[in-house]
């Protein structure tokens, strides 16, 4: 008998709790001297969570450093987990824009998430700063409310290809990358610059994003003197293991995700000697980066990688932009314009400014994986200064070409 009563009570309590949780509406916002509302779209569950959690840590580090104050206004921070699916991203961006009424959004992580919401963001006039690749959002289909303070998919690959051709003297390269827009655009950029510098891409291999075993793809690598890999998430680890296990010794070059600093602590010997090009490098010796790395190690016990640094810099841009806009965020067009006019010197990635399409112009670092003191490190070998998304190409000519894709530039036989 008594058991039944408790069960009934339990049900009632649960129902009441659920009802309370569902109908707890946010109180109306106060118009004057209101806090600046900053939203973050990230991925905290699922296969992309590793980068997504670093994104949040990057923002939190900056907020702590600034005591939650941007341009004289208190910052209210909203973090939303998209689950790494486009439908989830749409739901969560609506939550941020329509319910929380944020003034600016950081994120999302992946290009397919960004593509799902770019029109929505433009319609709702909310400035968004993302590190997702998706070239055309700052090129042929520009979104006036979008800024990319990290890099386009191919922006790091142009200098990487330049380095591979001129310094590593590679002649024939096989590219291998995931079969989605980010991979296509990375490899397209590599091919364009590499072939312009006299090299040749002999084959392009496209394993799907979720590939249980890379052996059949690694087996196709032949007739070359170098390999360019463009994997993201934790896939570089699995690819490099398979690559080494197959006994292949060709030098490997990669982009910002393929050699991310956050992967260093779980790398193995198969990574030694791999080159990567990244808009952030852990060993950059400026004040801002030292502060950032120390804070990340203290608060979260991890070395920051490209995702954490990207979001830290994005938060810096919002802060600086809000200052330039005089602390006003009601006019979103003016706020976006102010953010795009930001020029920063002291960031963890060095100097930074934006082009007229909202994409970053900044430094890119060529690094090589080495072993120092029992740890793997990305040692910076060369810095390409002030690289734009158009590399050395003329903007008009670049934009008149089709966007880098699976079949562009084509592989010449």
């Amino acid at each position, binding site marked *: 008998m008594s058991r039944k009563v408790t069960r009934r009570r339990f049900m009632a309590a649960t129902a009441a709790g659920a009802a309370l949780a569902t109908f707890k509406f946010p109180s109306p916002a106060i118009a004057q001297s209101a806090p600046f509302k900053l939203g973050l779209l990230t991925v905290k569950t699922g296969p992309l969570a590793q980068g997504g959690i670093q994104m949040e840590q990057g923002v939190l580090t900056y907020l702590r450093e600034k005591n939650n104050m941007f341009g004289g206004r208190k910052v209210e921070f909203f973090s939303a987990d998209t689950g790494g699916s486009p439908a989830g991203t749409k*739901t969560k961006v*609506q939550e941020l824009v329509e319910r929380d009424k944020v003034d600016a959004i950081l994120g999302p992580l992946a*290009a397919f998430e960004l593509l799902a919401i770019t*029109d929505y963001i433009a319609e709702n006039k909310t400035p968004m700063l993302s590190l997702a690749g998706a070239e055309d959002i700052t090129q042929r289909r520009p979104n006036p409310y979008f800024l990319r303070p990290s890099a386009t998919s191919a922006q790091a690959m142009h200098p990487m290809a330049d380095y591979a051709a001129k310094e590593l003297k590679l002649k024939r390269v096989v590219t291998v990358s995931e079969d989605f827009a980010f991979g296509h655009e990375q490899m397209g950029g590599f091919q364009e610059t590499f072939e312009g510098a006299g090299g040749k891409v002999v084959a392009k291999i496209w394993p799907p994003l979720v590939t249980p075993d890379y052996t059949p793809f690694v087996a196709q690598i032949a007739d070359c003197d170098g390999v360019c890999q463009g994997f993201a998430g934790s896939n570089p680890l699995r690819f490099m293991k398979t690559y080494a296990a197959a006994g292949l010794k060709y030098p490997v070059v990669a982009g910002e995700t393929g050699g991310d600093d956050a992967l260093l602590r779980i790398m193995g010997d198969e990574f030694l000697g791999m080159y990567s090009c990244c808009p952030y490098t852990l060993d950059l010796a400026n004040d801002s980066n030292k502060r950032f790395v120390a804070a990340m190690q203290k608060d979260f016990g991890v070395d920051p990688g490209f995702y954490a640094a990207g979001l830290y810099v994005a938060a810096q841009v919002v802060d600086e932009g809000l200052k330039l806009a005089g602390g006003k965020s009601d006019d979103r067009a003016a706020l976006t314009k102010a953010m795009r006019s930001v020029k920063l010197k002291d960031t963890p990635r060095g100097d930074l400014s934006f082009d007229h399409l909202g994409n970053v112009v900044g430094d890119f670092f060529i690094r090589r994986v080495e072993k120092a003191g029992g740890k793997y490190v990305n040692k910076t070998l060369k810095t390409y200064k002030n690289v734009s998304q158009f590399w050395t190409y003329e903007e008009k000519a670049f934009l008149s070409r089709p966007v880098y894709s699976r079949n562009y530039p084509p592989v010449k036989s």
Partner: protein
Amino acid sequence: MIDLIAGTNRLRLIAIAVVLAALVTLPFWVSGIYYINVGSQILFFAVFALGLNILVGYAGLVSLGHAGLFGISAYATAYMLQLGAGHTTAIMVALVIGVASMAVFAVLSLRSSGIGFIMITLALGQILWGLAYRWISVTDGDNGIPVRGRPAPFGYSLTDPVNFYYASLIVFIVAVAMVFIFVRSPFGAALMGTRDQPRRMNALGYHVWMIRFYACLFSGLLTAVSGILFVYYTNFISPQTLALTASAEVLLMVISGGPGTLLGPIVGATLVVVIKTVVSGFIERWNFLLGAIFVAIVILVPEGIVPGSVRLWHLIARKRAATPAAAEAEPTATERTP
């Protein structure tokens, strides 16, 4: 039987009227378009769950490939729009393609029932997911297809969230009415007969396979309708929508709410959508919460929330009635008393 319906009729009518009034006036008492959008999502996912419930609840056929069908109509809509077709054409083509693929599904999977049926639908759903993922010239792979704009029937642009909510509500009410009529028709009775006693139904001269096939088509129609609403809601479609987890999610809506009831899938859809969209904003580990709720459902109300709470209600009501008039206690009540 008729007495039973008449007895509950007044209470039920009042309840239906109250719920209907609440749904129609929702945009007026809910603050902010965010919650209206959550309402739209609940409505079209409820239509999806109603469609699956035809198979799971009334035909006793558990399908794990319904997200594939949901996605194929969404893709058909998006692809037609990308080819430059109008909204009416796109929707019509999507409906035809959705129902036709369900027919193909049914022909292949109705060779068996029980676990065999689950495995075949699972495999077919995964094939559709694979196609969406790798048939890049049509689906653009992982990048998905964006859909620009929403239709504007009778001059009401569905771009406005409130209008979209009402469109979903109309579709939802029509779907509920269709299922209501379907279940109470002789055909519905025959379908439940094939669920409970397929061999006896066969012996009585019913064409069991054909009855199940038609039930599949009806389920496919509701799934296609909800898929079209979904793609217009998100303005985007990509392979994740067709993944196995999506199939499992809608199956959980049906099972948690109560398969084989009209209200069950609606309650289940509400539960899952509210936790996924609203509660996930407050609780980071919302997957865990959802799991815990399902475990609680399995332990406390294994037949689903709707029939389970009806049972608990009757139990309470009977106990109250039984205390003064213990002499009249019917023997059937012993079944549940410890």
